[in-house]
């Protein structure tokens, strides 16, 4: 072997990855952290802060430079999500919905003409965008979605409703700017979906409701979006009719790996908080860290975090954004990390006792935010289903 394995840094494989982590961490600590608690309390999506992500180049992190992106890889996307989520998972979710679900998806799957129309504004933060998959009656059974598209004249008419759409609204009344919407041509088979780019202002497209009172992730806004005889032209269709199921599968991998990265950020911050507290706080005349019960929380949390971190970065390093094929591990990292982060945040609250239960000490917010990652972007049960199917193709694990 040419290189010493000791030089391998799985989490910062190149100097550019290290520099990226440094930039995002500095930005997160200086500008995202100070607003995190207040945005959570008031269920406020911080649009000016979001636009700053565009100035830094984070919104088009995986997109080619010719469309206004930074041309970085899946590991870079994982670094950005981990660092931002360590201070504000809610805000990070809005970032993910825009940069991974819309921007990366359009970059991978849309035509050059569509990329030129949508990506420069989306990468710069001039627009806030999202992706519409789930519906009031279809979640884990995504191919059971009921939104229809029908040919009319030169274009299409969309009918249906989409649920749990992050960035669906930017405030209580205002729609986000553009969405990638999955639908099925009327009469088409279950597995053949077709996707469309739908802009705010398209007749028949409206904000059903902004969903309030979420348990966590309150710094991102979530909405129900309604399509009622919504007319879109042919140039808004992405790829061929029936071709969007593959687009969806391609993009789900980076979505799940970056959601796992958010869990890593939540767990790291929770560990930092409980580690510091366990050394400073004394009980019965000794620091908490001297008690076996607290040692177990710290040691198990660290080992689980590092296991999840190693698995996630290893998986991200293998992902080629242009192709599908890492289903087993992209589901696997999210399955492991989502629950790991929820448990680590829970232990942090336990170590802090009463202090852990109030907002000022951060971990109660992280605990609430962590739960969403067991549901959104694939429920734990969806991961069980997908992984078991993938394992059916494996004769012997190597």
């Amino acid at each position, binding site marked *: 072997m040419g290189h010493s394995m000791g030089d391998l840094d799985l989490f910062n494989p190149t*100097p550019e990855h290290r*520099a990226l982590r440094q930039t995002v961490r500095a930005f997160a600590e200086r500008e995202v952290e100070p607003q995190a608690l207040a945005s959570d309390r008031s269920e406020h999506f911080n649009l000016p802060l979001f636009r700053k992500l565009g*100035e*830094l180049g984070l919104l088009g992190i995986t997109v080619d430079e010719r469309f206004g992106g*930074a041309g970085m890889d899946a590991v870079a996307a994982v670094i950005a999500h981990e660092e931002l989520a360590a201070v504000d998972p809610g805000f990070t979710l809005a970032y993910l919905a825009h940069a991974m679900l819309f921007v990366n998806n359009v970059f991978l799957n849309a035509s050059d003409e569509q990329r030129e129309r949508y990506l420069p504004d989306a990468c710069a933060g001039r627009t806030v965008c999202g992706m519409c998959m789930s519906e009031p009656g279809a979640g884990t059974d995504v191919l059971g979605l009921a939104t229809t598209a029908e040919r009319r004249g030169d274009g299409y008419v969309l009918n249906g409703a989409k649920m749990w759409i992050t960035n669906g609204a930017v405030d209580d009344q205002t729609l986000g700017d553009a969405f990638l919407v999955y639908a099925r041509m009327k009469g088409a088979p279950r597995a053949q979906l077709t996707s469309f780019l739908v802009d705010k202002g398209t007749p028949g497209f409206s904000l059903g409701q902004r969903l309030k009172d979420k348990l966590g992730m309150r710094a991102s806004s979530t909405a129900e979006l309604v399509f009622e005889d919504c007319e879109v032209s042919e140039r808004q269709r992405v790829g061929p009719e029936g071709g969007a199921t593959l687009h969806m599968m391609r993009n789900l991998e980076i979505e799940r790996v970056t959601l796992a990265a958010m869990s890593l950020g939540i767990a790291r911050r929770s560990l930092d908080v409980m580690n510091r507290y366990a050394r400073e706080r004394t009980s019965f005349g000794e620091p908490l860290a001297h008690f076996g019960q607290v040692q177990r929380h710290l040691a198990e949390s660290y080992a689980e975090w590092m296991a999840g971190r190693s698995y996630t970065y290893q998986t991200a390093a293998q992902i080629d954004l242009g192709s599908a094929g890492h289903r087993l591990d992209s589901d696997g990292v999210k399955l492991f990390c989502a629950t790991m982060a929820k448990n680590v945040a829970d232990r942090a609250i336990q170590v802090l006792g009463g202090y852990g239960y109030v907002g000022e000490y951060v971990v109660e917010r992280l605990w609430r935010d962590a739960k969403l990652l067991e549901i959104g972007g694939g429920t734990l049960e969806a991961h069980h289903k997908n992984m078991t199917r993938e394992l059916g193709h494996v004769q012997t694990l190597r």
Partner: protein
Amino acid sequence: MKILVPIKRVADPDNANKVKVSADGTQVTTEGLEWKMNPFDEWALEAALRLTEDGAAKSRVGEVVLVSVGPKEAVATVREGLAKGAERGVIVEGNDNDLDSNVIAAALAAVAKKESPDLIVMGKQTVDGDSNVAGTVLADKLGWPIINYAMRIETSDDGKTFAIKRDLDVGVASVKVTGPVVITVSDSILHPESVKNGVTPADFKYPEAEGGRYASLKGIMQAKKKPIAEQTLSGLGVDAKRTVTYKKFELPPARSGQTTFVESVEELVEKLRTEAKVL
């Protein structure tokens, strides 16, 4: 305008409490600490970038050359500066233990003679040694003026003359100076209107930023391709030796962690006098 900006990598100042002293007390050990750009140098770099750009149009109109004297690994710190916008870098290789302000100033003077910049902008000190002399010794070796603790820098003739405000304990001193000159900066240089170069519109305000600008992702990717020249002290003809040697390092005594509450100013003064013995 061409500006030379000396930068140094230092052990993460936010975790200075993790710095330890070796068992024999001869050196400070920094194991396990991350390396970062000296914060004072970050501010100097920000000032230099503002002087050499149109801040409103976000276009470069001059050149910033970074120079670092230290171990090879300092290349990461130089790349960080390149990612923020500097054009190229120079590394003068040297072992940190063989360097002091005198050797650094001699190396910087040798680089300055080769590069002939209009200006050298640097931090007033580094957060590890806190000596606060390299800038002044460098100016002396070059025979240039030294302006310390700059908080405002203005030029309207592409760096031939500068109007500078100096941040002093007793107030603000205004000076005019003709280049080439060595300027050291204080943190006030990060003020939104601290730098006027005659190119950026006079009413333009930079955003408030704690440590200067961030390296953008585009900047990070471009920095990969920017040149970094490698030099050695002997190659530059620097034969300076350390003039300062450290005999012994000690950690400050641990704080007792005790808190005393007082009822009145009189009681506070009394306790400061009799218990803390600081008055």
